[in-house]
C-alpha cells in the first residue's frame, strides 16, 4: 500500500459559480518532494489551502495520514509595525516548541544573527528563511511551502532549495511546494504537477519537460529551464538530487550563458 502523507482525490472547487479546480488528484508520500507549477490564477494556492485543510473542496476527497504534523510556510506575511515582535518571539509562537528547538532551527537556516531583531526590520531574504524556520519547527511529517524563495537572490534560492532537499533527506518528511521559478524546481523535485485549474500533466521532472502540455503552458520559459538545470548540475552533483539526465541535448547553449 502506498504510504501517502496526504492525498487529494478528484478535488473540485468553484468560487461563486466559477470553476477554480477540476478533478485535481495527487498525493505526497514520505521522503518525496512534490512541486506545483502553473501560471498565475491556475489555482496553485487554492490546492495548497485545500491540502492544508484551510479550505473545503466542493467535491472530492482529502485524506491525511492520521496524526501527522504539518509545517507551513505561507507566501507572504505582513506584521504590523505596532506589534513589537523579534524573530525569536515569532518562532516561539509555534505551539509546542521550546527555546533549544528554536535555536537549532535558526542555526540550520542561518538566521541566528537576526534572532533578536524585530521581524519588520529584516530583509526579504531573511524573512523567507525565518518563515522556513517556522515551518521546520517541531519536526513536521509534511512541509508545505508556498513560493519559498520569493524575493531571495539567486544564490540564496539555490541554498534554500538545497536546504529543503537536505531536510527531506535527514527527516524523511514529505514536501509539497508551489514554485514560480521553473529553473530550480526541475532539479530538486521528485514529482512536478503542472496545474492550470486541472492537472495538465504530472510526473518526474525529466519526463514532464517532454510533455506537449508543459510546453504549451510555459512556452519559451521552459527552454530556459533546461539551460539552468545544466548549470545547476555542475554545482550540485555531489548531492545526488539532480535528475535531469535526458534533457542533455539542450545544454549546449547553456554553456555560453554560464
Amino acid at each position, binding site marked *: 500500500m502506498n504510504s501517502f502523507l496526504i492525498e487529494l482525490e478528484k478535488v473540485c472547487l468553484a468560487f461563486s459559480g466559477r470553476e477554480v479546480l477540476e478533478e485535481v488528484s495527487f498525493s505526497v508520500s514520505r521522503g518525496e518532494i512534490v512541486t506545483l507549477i502553473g501560471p498565475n490564477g491556475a489555482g496553485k494556492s487554492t490546492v495548497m489551502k485545500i491540502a492544508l*485543510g484551510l479550505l473545503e473542496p466542493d467535491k472530492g476527497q482529502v485524506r491525511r495520514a492520521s496524526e501527522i504534523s504539518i509545517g507551513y510556510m505561507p507566501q507572504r*506575511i505582513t506584521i504590523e509595525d505596532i506589534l513589537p515582535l523579534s524573530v525569536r518571539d515569532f518562532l516561539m509562537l509555534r505551539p509546542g516548541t521550546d527555546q533549544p528547538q528554536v535555536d537549532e532551527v535558526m542555526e540550520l537556516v542561518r538566521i541566528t544573527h537576526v534572532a533578536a531583531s524585530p521581524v519588520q526590520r529584516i530583509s526579504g531574504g531573511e524573512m523567507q528563511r525565518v518563515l522556513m524556520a517556522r515551518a521546520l519547527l517541531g519536526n513536521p511529517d509534511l512541509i508545505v511551502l508556498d513560493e519559498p524563495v520569493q524575493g531571495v537572490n539567486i544564490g540564496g534560492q539555490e541554498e534554500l532549495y538545497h536546504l529543503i532537499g537536505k531536510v527531506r533527506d535527514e527527516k524523511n518528511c514529505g514536501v509539497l511546494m508551489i514554485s514560480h521559478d521553473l529553473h530550480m524546481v526541475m532539479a530538486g523535485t521528485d514529482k512536478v504537477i503542472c496545474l492550470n485549474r486541472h492537472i495538465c500533466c504530472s510526473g518526474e521532472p525529466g519526463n514532464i519537460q517532454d510533455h506537449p502540455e508543459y510546453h504549451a503552458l510555459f512556452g519559451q520559459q521552459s527552454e530556459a529551464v533546461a539551460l539552468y538545470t545544466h548549470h545547476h548540475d555542475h554545482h550540485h552533483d555531489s548531492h545526488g538530487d539532480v535528475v535531469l539526465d535526458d534533457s542533455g541535448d539542450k545544454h549546449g547553449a547553456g554553456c555560453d550563458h554560464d
Partner: protein
Amino acid sequence: MARGAIMIDGFILNATLAGIFVALAAGPLGCFLVWRRMAYFGDTISHSALMGVGLGIAFGTASPWVIMVTCALVSGLLLLLQRGGKFSTDTLLGILAHSALSIGLIIIALQESLRQDMMFFLIGDILAIDIQSVMGIGIMTVVALGGLAYIWKSLLSVTVHEDLAQVEGVNVLATKVIYMLLIALLVAFAMKVIGALLITSLMIIPAAAARNIARSPFHMALYSMIIGSLSVVMGIMMSNQWDIPAGPSIVLSALILFLVGRGLPNRFRI
C-alpha cells in the same frame, strides 16, 4: 458646596480603584485591538453597550450582564455578516456601531427617568461608583486578564497569521470568540467608569503609548497596564482639581502620556 473631606476621599478612592481595575484589563486587551487593527471593533462593542444599558433598564435591571450579552450578540452578528463577504469588515462595523449607538440613545430617551443621565452613559460617572461596583469591576479584571493569559499565545499567533496558526493546530474561531467575549466583559463593567464613547480610548491610547517603549508583545501589554493606571490617577486628580468631567480627563491624561512617549528615543528600533 461643603462636602466632608472623608466623603471626598471615599469617592476618590472608589473611583481610583475602579479606574485602575478597568485600565489593567483595558491595556492588554487593547494591545490586541491595535495589533489586529481592530480599533473600530472596540467602538462597535462599546456603542452596543449603550444599547445594552437601554435594554437592561427597559427590562428593569442595571446588571452588567445584560450589557455583556448585548455586546456579545452584536459581535456574533458581525461574525455572521462577515461570512457573506459582500461588505468589508470596516463597512459592517460602521453600520453596526452607529446603529447600536442610535438604538441605545433612542431607548434611553424613551425612558423619562433616564434622560438627564444620558451624558453619564456616554462619558461615565466614575465619582459615583460604590464599593460593590468596585468589587464587581475588580473581579471582572481578574477574569479578563486570566482569560487573556489563557489564550495569549494562540491569539498572538492568530494575529500574526491566521492560516499559519490554524495549520499549526490553533483553534482560530474559538480564540477569536473568547477574545470578543473578553472585550464585551470589559466594556460591560467599564460603562460606569468611562462610558460608551470613551472606553475604546482607554484600550487604544495606553497600548499605543506602550509601543513607544516596548520590545516584546508581553512588555507592551505590561506597560499599557501601567500607562493606563497612571492616566486614571492623573485624570481623577485633574478632574478633582479643576472640576472637569473625570472620563475625558482620563483620556486626556492618556494622550499626554502617549505624546511624552513619542518624544522618547525608541530603544526597540535599531
